[in-house]
């Protein structure tokens, strides 16, 4: 397959207004095939709303979103999502939940069985196929949510603060797990988070949202080698990018070094 010049996701001057309250305005960026773009900003900056506009769950009031060149007005084929609160159906087993996307497409249980088994193995839930969500920990439920998203072989993966409901240790573990799983089948991914460290660790580029209404402050190239690991967060490059993003978002008094105007914007490194 030839590499296409058309970006997987194109966000074009996107804006969303609720009544007389403008959530965000004039957002424009692309996500290329096989790229992870993190979206980070202060609480309430509309990043989840942005993600919902991209996948078609919410309709923007200005601008447009295109996936594979096709305008997104409602959920389309090939777009999968992982939710902050997992969204597993409690009356279905793990296997049935993972198979849900295929079931809706009309794939019989026999046909989907092998794909479901493969994905359950990939996310590390072997042995829990017949368990119910309430019997699993939060981290395991989110693994199942990821498996469900991957089952439909999406071309675009949307992650809405997927680790926000998990404890810190599980969160750290799952960050690298998701990256490991993503390496197996790199998919264009939009990763929304309020953790700056997480945004830098996960993403190839970081979209920084600030202001009222939110606008794109900057889009930074993370430029760290893959596969990433726990040691990555201790590298100078990581710290440099993270500090830049932090300063951009935080108000005076919380900034790390000076302010965004004077602190150096991380140039693409030699990697």
């Amino acid at each position, binding site marked *: 397959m030839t590499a296409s010049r058309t970006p997987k996701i194109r966000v074009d001057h996107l804006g969303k207004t609720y009544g007389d309250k403008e959530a965000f305005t004039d957002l424009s960026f692309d996500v290329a095939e096989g790229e992870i773009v993190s979206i980070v900003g202060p609480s309430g900056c509309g990043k989840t709303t942005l993600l919902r506009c991209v996948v078609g769950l919410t309709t923007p009031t200005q601008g447009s979103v295109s996936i594979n060149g096709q305008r997104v007005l409602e959920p389309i084929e090939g777009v999968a999502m992982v939710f902050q609160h997992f*969204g597993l159906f409690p*009356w279905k087993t793990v296997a049935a939940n993972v198979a849900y996307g295929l079931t*809706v497409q009309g794939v019989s249980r026999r046909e989907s069985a092998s794909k479901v088994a493969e994905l359950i193995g990939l996310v590390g839930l072997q042995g829990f196929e017949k368990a119910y969500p309430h019997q699993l920990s939060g981290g395991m439920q989110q693994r199942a949510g990821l498996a469900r998203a991957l089952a439909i072989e999406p071309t675009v993966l949307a992650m809405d603060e997927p680790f926000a409901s998990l404890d810190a240790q599980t969160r750290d573990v799952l960050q690298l797990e998701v990256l490991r799983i993503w390496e197996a089948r790199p998919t264009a991914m939009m990763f929304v988070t309020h953790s700056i460290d997480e945004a830098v660790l996960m993403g190839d580029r970081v979209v920084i949202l600030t202001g009222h209404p939110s606008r794109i402050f900057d889009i930074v190239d993370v430029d760290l080698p893959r596969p990433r690991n726990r040691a990555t967060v201790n590298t100078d490059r990581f710290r440099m990018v993270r500090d830049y993003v932090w300063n951009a978002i935080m108000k005076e008094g919380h900034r790390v070094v000076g302010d965004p105007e004077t602190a150096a914007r991380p140039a693409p490194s030699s990697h």
Partner: protein
Amino acid sequence: MKDTTRSAGAPQATPAVGSASAPPPSAEPAPRAWYRRPLVVRVVAGLLILAIWQIVVELWAQDYVARPTGVIRVIPSVLTEKLFLSDIVTTLTAVVEGLAIAVVIGTAIGLVVGRLPDAQRVLGMYVNGVYALPIIAVVPLLTVWFGYTPKARLAVIVLEATLPVVYNVAEGARAVPRTYLDVTRIHRAPWWRVWFGVALPASTPYVLAGIDLAIGRALIGAVVAEFIAALDGLGYYILFNVNSFHEDRAIVALVVLALSAIVLRALVNVVVRRGFSWYWLA
């Protein structure tokens, strides 16, 4: 993968190593005093209530007021009376029939009212009105339409039992967590998968609550219908025996009525809890 899983079994006791305060392993727990055993306490409390009833009536009430000793004396003859036994069957069969119809109709209406906000706005007022009606006022009308027949009783039961189911199913359908609906929308699931595959299972706890309420109202409806339409059944048995000064027999029937309510509700609980592990669709 080193995720910690929630263990399904009980936590294991950690042995106290060389601790002076640990009880010697061979000692048995001391037998609990009678007042610490729940079953014994309940039985004692029940006997106490009966004793108080007996004493109060003996000392201060008229001769014809029923007392526990009188009731207990007639229990054997009532429980073997053919009429009594057939009355139980008649009434309970009608209640179960009516409940089944009510659950089906109620769930259907409840789903519609819950998922279509317009239906809510239009029908809500009427549903509230009928729900608030005292059934005793409606029964005479129903006996005119259905005659003094068991059909009238069934109609009353269905009317009384449907509304709590509608209310609770509507509440459940309305309260489907947004994330579930997001999942169905992302996967572009058709409407029937959303209604029957998600909204219905998600409202199962609400359906259970609705049926619970419906059982109570169904029994009331059955008894009231029997009173007013003079239909053979447990309710009429009670009325008849009270009117012919056989209160003791009536009280036995009353107790049986109360027990059937308890048993029905317990049965529903068991059946619907099992139902949680069924899939509704795929």
